[in-house]
């Protein structure tokens, strides 16, 4: 009898303390949480709602509930699919290029002597600090047919002549767009990979060396497997980021010549053409694509975001 009451007493006390701590926790963290929800959850819900209407700001009286017809219109339109595949193409190519370049940079910094490492780090942080729009202009002007110098420098390369207008065809435009994207974001990925590299214990590598592994084998069999988590997280973050690409495309081509990406399509529908219903539907579809990428990454590739972020 006494034992049970004593136990009940303990329980009550424990939950009191826990309750007070939980309350304080939410008092402190609550405002940030509410703000985050307010600036994202509310707009996306609103977008889902808007996407169910035919709604043009140019014709306010024509607003009408049409169910999922906006989605039908979009998904049967080759414009959407062209933008979709362009976005996928950009995402895949830039992430692969960034991963290879970023790894090379990370490896160089990891191996460099102290002073040199600082210098290299400073250098690669410059692209990180630059506004994306500025980087887009820098690349655009370098390649531009009137103001650029690239054509003059590389006119010995077959296919490049002073008359080559890089932004007149799809392939060349995408090349410059992707080059600027890779340049701007490789530093970030290489810093993430450098942190991952630093976490591979040095003695693992030494053990492999003693076991007779070559430098290449040490890289492929010891280092990379041990930083898989860091690589996966870096890839996922970059992929999501690349999938939202907007600034470079807007500055360089405004989506001309088959370079339109999904973000630009959504922007054009709603902000330029004031087709609120259609624009909202594109926004929702874009959102679903991002959710899909996350889902694939987490379920299929088992990217442990929380674990990799030291949260397990």
């Amino acid at each position: 009898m006494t034992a049970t009451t004593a136990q009940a007493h303990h329980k009550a006390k424990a939950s009191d303390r826990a309750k007070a701590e939980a309350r304080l926790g939410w008092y402190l963290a609550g405002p940030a949480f509410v703000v985050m929800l307010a600036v994202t959850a509310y707009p996306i819900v609103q977008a889902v709602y808007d996407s169910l209407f035919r709604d043009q700001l140019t014709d306010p009286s024509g607003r009408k509930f049409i169910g999922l017809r906006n989605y039908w219109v979009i998904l049967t339109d080759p414009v959407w699919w062209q933008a979709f595949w362009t976005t996928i193409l950009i995402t895949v190519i830039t992430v692969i290029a960034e991963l290879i370049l970023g790894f090379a940079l990370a490896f160089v910094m990891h191996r460099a002597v102290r002073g040199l490492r600082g210098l290299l780090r400073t250098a690669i942080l410059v692209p990180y600090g630059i506004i994306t729009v500025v980087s887009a202009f820098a690349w655009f002007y370098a390649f531009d047919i009137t103001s650029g110098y690239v054509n003059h420098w590389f006119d010995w390369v077959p296919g490049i002549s002073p008359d080559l207008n890089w932004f007149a065809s799809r392939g060349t435009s995408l090349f410059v767009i992707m080059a600027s994207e890779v340049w701007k974001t490789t530093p970030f990925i290489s810093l993430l990979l450098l942190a991952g590299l630093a976490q591979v214990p040095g003695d693992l590598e030494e053990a492999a060396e003693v076991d007779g592994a070559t430098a290449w084998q040490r890289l492929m069999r010891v280092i990379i497997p041990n930083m898989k988590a860091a690589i996966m997280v870096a890839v996922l973050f970059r992929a999501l980021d690349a999938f939202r690409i907007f600034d470079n495309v807007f500055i360089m081509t405004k989506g001309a010549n088959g370079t339109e990406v999904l973000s630009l399509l959504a922007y054009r529908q709603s902000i330029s053409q004031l087709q609120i219903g259609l624009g909202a539907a594109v926004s929702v579809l874009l959102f679903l694509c991002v959710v899909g990428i996350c889902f694939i990454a987490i379920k299929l590739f088992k990217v442990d975001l929380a674990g990799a972020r030291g949260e397990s």
Partner: protein
Amino acid sequence: MASIDVKNIVKEYGDGFLAVKGISLDIADGEFMILVGPSGCGKSTLLRMIVGLEDITDGELLIGGERMNEKAPRDRNLAMVFQNYALYPHLTVRENIAFPLRLHRGEFSEAEIKSRVERASDMLELNDHLDRKPANLSGGQRQRVAMGRAIVRNAQAFLFDEPLSNLDAKLRGQMRTEIARLQRSLATTTVYVTHDQTEAMTLGDRVAVLSAGELQQVASPRALYEQPVNLFVAGFIGSPPMNFLPGELGGGKIRLPFGEFDLPDRVARAAGDRSLVIVGIRPEAFEDAKLTQPRDGSFQFEANVDVTEWLGSELYAYVPFQTHEAVEAKLAELERQLDSEALRTQFVVNLDSASRVRDGDTAALWFDPAKMLVFDPETTENLTYDEAEATRLDEENEADRKASIERARARAAKEGAAA
């Protein structure tokens, strides 16, 4: 300086876990008290309750006769050295040491702070490092800075929470003597938590052995060593640890794994009508018959030595034996409590380094049965515990302590007069 009285203190965590199950301890003014036990025994919790970082669930804490249960740490005027030193990384060594003094604005003048910091740094030989940041110091230096921060103000007592556990073996030995020297010269009441029985034995005036939140025994190091109250204390104190063997009694004989012997009266009295006991024999009780002539009444036997370790000053020989299934479970449980792992049943004997006993030998050994302890296999209590002898050892130790403090004071006075 003050005495610390811990009266039946209990610590219960929010989830109902009892970390300290009612411990009472009287720590005299100027005494060096060690709290020792395996990890999770509640020793650090007890220390943190004394300093005020943990609330006391039940019981009473008196410092200098004043109840302290409800006081904030800063009002208890205690100084603590943390396991990871807790040095402020943004402050220099000088400012780390001065930190407690600067907290009370106006209480200490700049000149006084300076002189106090210098006195502390003289004592700890930190003069060359005063303007460095903790990150640039070695482990031993950090340790000394942490101690400097403790001694810079006149705290009522020093509390140490495993201060040497992050140092390597050699440095640990040096810092141990450093702490002992400092405590003797300042004669400040000190409570020192450790899991290392060597630290406990070398530093403490008295040692409190804890296990699973309960106090097992408080006594002088020598009394703990010679008169442990139970199996746990006997097994925890001493290195290499005491050997525990099953002893079967009957017909005026005691049967140990290595032979049958006449039952001495002392053991017979202690064992009463038990037919099975756990016998405890310290490794150093054994002798090599080839080197030392067995004394009258000693137990002599032949043992098959498995492995020997020659250490220069002594030789350890390991002898495997068949244990008795009735005590096997009890001894396994003891191993768990002691945080150790018994890989095989063997006992260890500590012989003179001149001994030629080697791996695979059959050695002739003997020991004096007077040094044999007998434990109840159920309650684990020491049946041969001699309370009068334990008290005598404690009193002897207390007298020695007072004498050494007196000597330290006289020396300080002489130096003061000379200067």
